[in-house]
């Protein structure tokens, strides 16, 4: 047989992955210009979008690409936030270093808890419940340990002016946006490279049929744990960024179940298992979150009873989720992509 056919085809496949990379990089470059056009209020919405995007991208690796449904990504998010917070508050360590430490710790936590859950063959809903339990365990630790300052949480000591080393900028600075954007792009590039790699291909095969994968020589446990580690690390980075943006964390804010839900939403809304799905989902959810917060702060006439209440955002998410699952089960981006493929 000739080798020309496979070679050109290999190129075509790399090209397809490269196209996703191109979209990411060009989209990123355009997004970097946004602060020039946005006011401070809109910019804070954009930063919310970026936090959603990072969180959702992390969840999507383990649950969308890896097929292991997680209901406990708050564990990794919180580890990222608390690791950086603790090192900064207690030892004056730069949050950049804290970010790396948090990502490593979260990956290690994911590997250990993932091993325990998978070792005992937990699947589907049972696996999801185990991840929920592990996240709750960390929340209770954070709530009761002096190390994490119990229920009070950690306040990031303020610096004068802006400091890249301390990852802290005055209110209204666009630097937060650019940092968040850079981290999100980095995460996306990692995901694309992962999917192109041997390990990433194994992850998809294991998701589709793990017995068949094992019978072809794929070490299923190793593939699953690697996928979890990458997912946890990306999510932890989101946690550190959250800490530096809000300058405050407590157990409920970062280890609470609502974080785990917010990790699931962007991918489900945008398209589970697609690289760009969580980004599209985040662009829907960020503004929605802001809208609901605004409604609670200044309710329109006739809805005065909303004043000062909480939980409206969760109700809106729930309604949106039901709508998406009914109408576009593949998510916004996933459905659009499927529609375009079918037309060709």
């Amino acid at each position, binding site marked *: *047989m000739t*080798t020309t*056919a*496979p*070679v050109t*085809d*290999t190129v075509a*496949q790399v090209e397809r992955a490269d196209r996703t990379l191109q979209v990411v990089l060009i989209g990123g470059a355009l997004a970097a210009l946004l602060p020039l056009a946005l006011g401070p209020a809109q910019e804070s919405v954009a930063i919310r979008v970026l936090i959603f995007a990072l969180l959702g991208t992390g969840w999507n690796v383990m649950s969308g690409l890896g097929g292991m449904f997680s209901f406990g990504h708050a564990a990794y998010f919180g580890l990222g936030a608390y690791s950086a917070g603790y090192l900064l508050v207690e030892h004056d360590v730069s949050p950049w270093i804290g970010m790396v430490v948090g990502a490593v710790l979260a990956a290690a936590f994911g590997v250990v808890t993932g091993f325990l859950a998978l070792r005992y063959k937990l699947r589907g809903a049972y696996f999801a419940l185990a991840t929920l339990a592990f996240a709750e365990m960390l929340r209770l630790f954070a709530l009761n340990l002096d190390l994490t300052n119990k229920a009070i949480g950690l306040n990031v000591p303020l610096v004068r002016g802006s400091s890249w080393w301390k990852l802290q900028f005055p209110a209204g600075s666009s630097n937060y946006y650019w940092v968040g954007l850079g981290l999100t792009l980095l995460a996306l590039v990692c995901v694309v490279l992962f999917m*192109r*790699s*041997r390990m990433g*291909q*194994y992850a*998809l*095969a294991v*998701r*589709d*049929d793990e*017995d*068949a*994968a*094992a*019978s*072809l*020589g*794929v*070490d*299923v446990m190793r593939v699953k744990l690697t996928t979890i580690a990458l997912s946890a690390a990306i999510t932890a980075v989101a946690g550190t960024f959250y800490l530096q943006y809000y300058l405050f964390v407590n157990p409920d804010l970062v280890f609470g179940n609502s974080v785990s839900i917010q990790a699931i939403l962007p991918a489900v809304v945008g398209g589970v*298992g697609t690289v760009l799905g969580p980004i599209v989902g985040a662009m829907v959810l960020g503004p929605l979150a802001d809208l609901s917060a605004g409604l609670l702060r200044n309710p329109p006439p006739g809805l005065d009873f909303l004043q000062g209440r909480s939980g409206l955002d969760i109700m809106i998410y729930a309604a949106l989720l039901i709508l998406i699952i009914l109408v576009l089960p593949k998510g916004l981006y996933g459905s659009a992509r499927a529609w375009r493929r079918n037309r060709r």
Partner: protein
Amino acid sequence: MSAILEVTGLSKSFAGLHALSDVSFSVEQGSILGIIGPNGAGKTTLFNALCGTVKPDTGKVLLRGKDITGRSAHRTARDGMVRTFQLMRPFATMSVRDNVAIAAQGKHRRAAALAHADEVLKRVGLADLRGVQAADLSTAHLKRLELARALATGPEVLLLDEVLAGLVPAEREPVLELLLELRASGTTLLFVEHVMSAVMRLSDRVLVLDQGRVLMEGAPAEVTSDARVVEAYLGGGFSDAGP
């Protein structure tokens, strides 16, 4: 010629039901062993126990003289013994080509794995469908995909679980040719099959299982003329059914 696979006293029970009891046999390198027996005789369980999909209760499996009893499925595959599934188990969201490339990746880097996958696909006659998503394939094509994936691992011992089932006679012929080609290139084959004409034509030896036990083992002609086999497997009507 020496035995590449030696099985001694292999047993496996499920909740008191003896799926396999005291199964022993050996296979020469580069030969074809046909495995026959009525439904529920333990053929698929035998494959599962050999390949680490289930752990045998007792007994030993030696591959090239090395004890691999109860080893996990992926390690058995890496040691060179690979099986196909009776009910096809494709990676449904992936393309035909990526399905095969997954198998080839154990020994090749990604780009080489894709090239190797194309070669194997050509060999089993799926080259035209390589871009199709596996979920969209017909049964006959899925059977071939199952075979292609196993081949792409470059196995020394290949265990085929009813690769001909669901194929019309015209579709069987190229598969049979392929199996003979594999034997000629030194691959050892074990195949479970209900299509008797194929068993008779391909097998160097035939192993007959009945209720989890080895009823007999011998050359194809010996087996078909054995009264016990005719009784157990063919219900006495073998001479009428014809090979």
